[in-house]
């Protein structure tokens, strides 16, 4: 009978074997194709056939519209587009791995928040020349720029802003949208007076979505990042979180709410304001029993601290980038066509309510006549800015670090000043990595 006890000798042997395993794994990885270190993924850049990687090809609502664009291109150009898709939540990690491994080529759909992380890999082509031909809006063009280089052509450009239920506002006697944070707070108190379990503002209070605090911090004057210096922890950020906590304690915002909960509350007529992307209107209205809710939804310019301040909103959108290598030229032409051809972008808008990123597209009657989209573009997207943390590959961890500290404040586990100081320190540490 053998004994199963592990002696010092055995432990050392295991350690040696473990080290050998790591070395073996490293050797195997080293034997892998050199795609990871090259800036191009190889192949004929002039090839007519190319790949298109897109999460929209997975999504029930978007898939037919994207497939239609692809089919039209294939027919017109007599070429073949190989489609690749990953779920949205796994998209960035899968793309990073496969772009680095040399498997991903051609056109690539990107969330504008990911552009910095992907561009840093050095695998994306410079699309500056193509961008000049597109007739994109200024804000659209900026959404595809990283480190001064145009890596993405804007497919749709919007923002994450406040949406109001006009029926509830009317019921509470609020005739005008609040302009300042003070007016906003007063409006929330009026709405609270309606009773019936109404949450005046279904703001994010769960860690998963507490990144929504950033525009409020900016509203209170915090820049988040000043050059290389993290400014979270300054007086403005502390004021913003103190105010958020005040709303929470006064039950003007509810505990444990994320985007899905907020949509559910809003859909049931139990929330007067909530934050969402422009496309959220469709999702919220679709799950509501009240079929007139869509008409009652209004975009609201985020209240400012002092009259005359610039309203803050987080830029949101999709771009199409192109990987260097196989089919690069055709993929660039396709990206330009999909994002700037008037008929294509307007039809895309009609199907998915995703606003075009071109001036011509926005001016098209089919888009302009949509009051919600036009109002959103003029009132919210116009002054929206990207997050300064998008340029870092650790963006998700940064958002989580801040969110956890804000939540600690909301549940009474930390004071705003201490929590923001700690959040700023954690963000600075993450950036240094």
């Amino acid at each position: 009978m053998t004994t199963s006890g592990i002696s010092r000798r055995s432990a050392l042997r295991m350690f040696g074997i473990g080290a050998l395993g790591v070395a073996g794994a490293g050797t195997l990885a080293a034997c892998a194709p050199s795609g990871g270190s090259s800036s191009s993924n190889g192949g004929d850049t002039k090839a007519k056939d190319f790949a298109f990687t897109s999460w929209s090809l997975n999504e029930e609502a978007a898939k037919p519209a994207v497939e239609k664009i692809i089919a039209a291109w294939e027919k017109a150009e007599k070429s073949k587009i190989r489609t690749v898709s990953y779920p949205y939540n796994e998209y960035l990690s899968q793309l990073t791995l496969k772009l680095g491994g040399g498997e991903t080529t051609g056109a690539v759909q990107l969330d504008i928040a990911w552009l910095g992380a992907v561009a840093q890999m050095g695998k994306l082509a410079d699309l500056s020349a193509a961008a000049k031909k597109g007739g994109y809006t200024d804000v659209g063009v900026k959404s595809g720029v990283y480190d001064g280089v145009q890596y993405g052509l804007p497919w749709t450009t919007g923002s994450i802003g406040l949406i109001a239920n006009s029926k509830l506002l009317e019921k509470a006697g609020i005739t005008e949208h609040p302009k300042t944070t003070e007016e906003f707070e007063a409006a929330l108190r009026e709405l609270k007076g309606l009773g019936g379990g109404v949450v005046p503002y279904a703001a994010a209070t769960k860690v998963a979505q507490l990144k929504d605090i950033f525009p409020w911090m900016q509203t209170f004057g915090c820049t988040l990042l000043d050059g290389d210096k993290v400014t979270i922890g300054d007086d403005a950020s502390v004021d913003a979180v103190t105010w958020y906590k005040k709303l929470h304690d006064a039950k003007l915002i509810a505990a444990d709410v994320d985007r899905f909960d907020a949509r559910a509350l809003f859909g049931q007529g139990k929330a007067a304001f909530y934050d969402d992307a422009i496309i959220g209107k469709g999702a919220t209205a679709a799950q509501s029993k009240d079929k007139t809710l869509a008409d009652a939804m209004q975009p609201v310019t985020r209240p400012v601290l002092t009259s005359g301040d610039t309203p803050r909103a987080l830029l949101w959108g999709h771009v199409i980038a192109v990987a260097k290598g196989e089919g690069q030229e055709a993929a660039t032409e396709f990206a330009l066509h999909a994002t700037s051809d008037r008929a294509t972008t307007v039809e895309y808008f009609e199907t998915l309510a995703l606003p075009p990123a071109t001036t011509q597209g926005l001016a098209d009657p089919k888009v302009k006549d949509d009051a919600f989209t036009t109002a959103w573009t003029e009132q919210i997207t116009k002054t929206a800015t990207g997050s300064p943390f998008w340029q870092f590959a650790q963006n998700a961890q940064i958002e989580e670090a801040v969110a956890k500290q804000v939540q600690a404040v909301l549940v009474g586990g930390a004071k705003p000043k201490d929590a923001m100081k700690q959040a700023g320190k954690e963000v600075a540490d993450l950036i240094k990595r």
Partner: protein
Amino acid sequence: MTTTTTTPLPRDEKAAPMAMTTPRPARRRLRKDLVRSRIAAWSAVLVIGALGMLPVYWLLVTALSTPGQAFQFPPKLIPTEITFSNFSALAENDQLFTYLVNSMIVATITAVLSVVVATYMGYSFSKFRYRGRRSLMHLVLASQMFPQALLLVTLYTVFSSFGLLNTYTALVLSFTTFTMPLCVWMLKGIFDTIPDALLEAASIDGASRWRTLHSIVAPLAAPGMIAAGLFAFVRGWNDFIFALTLADKEKQTLPPGLVSTYIGEFQTAWPELMAASLVVSVPVVVAFMFLQRYLVGGMTAGSVKS
């Protein structure tokens, strides 16, 4: 367990000393204690059982809900209206059937491969003494010590260089990487319980080592092999990240397939996702129901030796 018996006292002995009458209240107290402990035990079982079954119940309720009900806030434990449309919608999605077939193929091959290889390895570790045996055993165990994410990147680059990406082979090999060590150690434990005398007797009767393993040892270790196979099957069936990374849509299995189909950028189709999850878990549940006694037996077989 002990039982207490008492003889009834005659009427005229009612005035007997106190000590003679104590068995009745003591018995009553004993019975009360027994009832109390039973109630406590059943309450604990019910609470723990309810906690365990609540997610399954919630899965069922959501699968039978309309989108409006599923997103009701606060959520309701008992649905007010029931719909089967989420189940009927599954039949219209051909891609789900492809994912299901892929899962069956990949999980079955993983289970068979894991058991076959682990049987030989486990038998070798258990019944033979050779140089490097213990080191090899520890090497097998060491492969479990790496984080999956680390192995994913390595395996991805290796499969890519060998042109194996987007194939069943890549999925089976990667799943087997994780199932093998536990299968080997499980089966080694089971082989350890088989007396060496049995092997010696077979040898005296003229059986070769090959024959001894296949005709004598393997049938005795069958419950353990079934347990190891079931473990490997479930592991292969449930994997998400390897199936998503190493296979394309045509070869992907159910976990990444369901996520791709129902979880989007803006919306998650929870009722449909839950209905699909319920339906696709049926094969595993059925397999588990039939083979669970082997799983439990196989897991513990090597723990006690005679």
